[in-house]
């Protein structure tokens, strides 16, 4: 049933289509630019996809699916892999069964992230294979390959994409479905799955053996290819850099690496030996360059200035020319801002005017750092508002400590805020503390995804809602209040000031739906009511 269909898909859509064709039992993940659309597309294609509260839980759920002999996809942005790193490193030791593919969507240039970490390091550090597609067609093909490699060697496989793969639309010719042959079922395998030291010691050796075999497979039949050209210039590249390089040096011979860890060293040695000058074009850190130099290969890398930001055709031309002259800064565009009508505006207007010390967090509300508000003092990672705020409170003189407030969004709170509340209740600062949850009933910044606090699942159907106020009360927070920052009678400012003046532990929830999400939320709620009514009227069988 090979198809001749020709589609124009984003890399994210291509991964979703391949996951469907691979017979994925469950896709799970946490929203994060540029990965978010993968699970949404999988759901729209009729696959099963769900948001997890965070990436660690997503990968753990995926691990369970694999051990139940199902195929599974865990999607996240680059910094999400940090959160999932704990299960990842030990999952690498285990004998997985169903294919487990972890999508790492990196953001070189930081279009929408707090750092530009290069997640190729994770393949090396955890000891798992990594595939890097150069366009949407390869995103489709490599996703299928990733499932098959994962099952063949019983190992998690990372498919690493970047913004220009995830969010670039290119042609995809999908092939026939390749769902594999496993049927869900449980088989006990204590030494392969219970990672106590006596099992983990041999498991680590076994992992290194798997990687040696995969490296040999990569040399003999891995998804790497040479675009032939003049032997005077050879270029080694992976991901979107392959495309920049082929355009910047149309006559060059290009080795496009598809399975970038473990590296196909024989293939690389042969390629380097077959050209006069060989240069590695890689976005981010100098990983392939360093590996080849460590092997004694005479390759050139890129000057240090090109470690920063995205590559593109002009920058690759400069690298090839050895040009290290300063690059012209692109004209500054208009920065993003909080939407008109967004209730974060009222919140940050008050925080700025009261000159509080604001430990901030990740979400739309991080825009509170920009003018006219300029009301944020720290932003680190998901959930950091609470821990950082507590550290400030513990250390600052009391009069300054009393000005510290932690500000965190609802989705971020569910992702990584609960342990911060546990810390606050367990080790309260002498001046107490105030956590302000700005609850807009959605994961707004990534495009309005659901989370456990909305009471709606990925496809917006109703599910159990986690009540943030009740959770905080149950965890032992003394004062928990909910206000609407746009309702004058709720007096958000007065409520906040009153809590800040007490040397107690408080959570203030500023709750008002995101202006962009509100019409959709009303529709989902309407549909849920009608669904419930239909259900109530349905005759019992």
């Amino acid at each position, binding site marked *: 049933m090979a198809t001749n269909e020709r589609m*124009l898909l984003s890399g994210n859509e291509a991964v979703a289509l391949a996951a469907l064709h691979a017979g994925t039992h469950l896709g799970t993940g946490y929203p994060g*630019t*540029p990965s978010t659309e993968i699970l949404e597309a999988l759901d729209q294609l009729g696959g099963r996809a769900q948001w997890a509260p965070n990436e660690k839980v997503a990968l753990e759920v995926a691990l369970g699916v694999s051990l139940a002999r199902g195929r599974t996809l865990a999607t996240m942005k680059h910094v999400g892999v940090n959160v999932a790193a704990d299960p990842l490193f030990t999952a690498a030791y285990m004998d997985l069964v169903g294919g487990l593919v972890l999508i790492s969507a990196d953001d070189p*240039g930081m*279009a*929408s*992230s707090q750092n530009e970490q290069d997640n190729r390091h994770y393949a090396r550090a955890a000891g798992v294979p990594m595939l890097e597609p150069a*366009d949407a067609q390869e995103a489709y093909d490599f996703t299928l390959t990733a499932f098959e490699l994962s099952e063949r060697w019983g190992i998690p496989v990372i498919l690493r994409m970047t*913004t*220009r793969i995830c*969010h*670039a*639309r*290119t*042609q995809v010719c999908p092939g026939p479905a390749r769902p594999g042959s496993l049927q869900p079922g449980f088989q006990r395998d204590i030494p392969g799955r219970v990672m106590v030291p006596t099992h983990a010691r041999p498991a680590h050796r076994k992992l290194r053996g798997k990687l040696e075999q995969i490296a040999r497979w990569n040399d003999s039949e891995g998804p790497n290819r040479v675009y032939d050209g003049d032997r005077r210039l050879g270029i080694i590249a992976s991901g*979107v850099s392959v*495309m*920049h390089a*082929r*355009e910047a040096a149309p006559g060059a011979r290009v080795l496009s690496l598809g399975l970038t860890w473990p590296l196909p060293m024989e293939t690389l040695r042969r390629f380097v030996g077959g050209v006069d000058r060989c240069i590695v074009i890689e976005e981010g850190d100098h990983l392939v360059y360093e590996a080849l130099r460590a092997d004694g290969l005479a390759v050139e890398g890129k000057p240090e200035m090109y470690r920063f930001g995205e590559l*593109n*055709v*002009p920058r690759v031309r400069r690298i090839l020319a050895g040009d290290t002259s300063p690059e012209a800064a*692109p*004209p*500054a*565009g*208009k*920065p*993003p*801002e*909080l*939407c008109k009508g967004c209730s974060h505006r009222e919140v940050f207007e008050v925080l700025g005017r009261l000159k509080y010390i604001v430990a901030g967090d990740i979400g*739309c509300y991080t*825009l509170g750092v920009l003018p006219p508000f300029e009301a944020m003092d720290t932003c680190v990672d998901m959930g950091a508002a609470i821990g950082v705020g507590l550290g400030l409170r513990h250390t600052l003189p009391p009069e300054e400590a009393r000005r510290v407030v932690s500000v965190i969004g609802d989705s971020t709170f569910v992702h990584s805020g609960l342990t911060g509340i546990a810390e606050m209740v367990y080790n309260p600062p002498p001046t107490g503390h105030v956590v302000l949850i700005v609850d807009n009933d959605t994961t707004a*910044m*990534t*495009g309005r995804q659901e989370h456990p606090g909305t009471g709606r699942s990925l496809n917006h159907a109703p599910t159990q809602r986690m009540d943030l106020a009740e959770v905080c009360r149950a965890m032992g927070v003394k004062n928990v209040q909910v206000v609407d920052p746009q309702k004058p009678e709720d007096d958000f400012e007065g409520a906040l000031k009153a809590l800040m003046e007490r040397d107690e532990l408080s959570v203030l929830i500023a709750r008002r739906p995101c202006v962009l999400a509100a019409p959709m939320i009303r529709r989902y709620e309407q549909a849920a009511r009608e669904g419930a009514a239909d259900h109530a009227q349905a005759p019992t069988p």
Partner: protein
Amino acid sequence: MAVTNIVLAGLGGQGVVTASDLLSTAAFSTGLQVKKSEVHGMSQRGGSVTSDVRFGEEVFSPMVPDGEADFLLVFEPSQVEINRHWLRPGGMLITPDDIPEGSLRNRKSLNVALLGALSVQLEFDEATWMQAIRSRLPAKIHAINEQAFAIGRGAGERLGRETQTEGV
């Protein structure tokens, strides 16, 4: 056939990405290779947004190289100067000034009107564009966008003639 490079630029919420979806869909349906890319996320909160569309027999990078755009469509006057660097020498700038004031029934369809103006310069027939609009936009806004496209196309024809008389 050389690659055609088009950059669309505006502010979040102006339909820049929708317009580049329509353009890339139209180009793709004629059998050409197409690549399009943009960044999402932070840039969508009312900030500057650009989207690159490239098509031809064979396209490599999904990003238009600086100074190589054949066409630059800018949706918001304040964004013209900061994006001009994308244009190649002799490349064509299309802005809201090219769409007659008050001609659109709904200002939200400006993005499609600008595509109409661009369409005069490209070799896709009108049916290709209509098919792209119908396949990618919700049915209830087909009529208003088809009208916007026609207004833009009319404006583009006048623009093309003026450009020719100037001998640029």
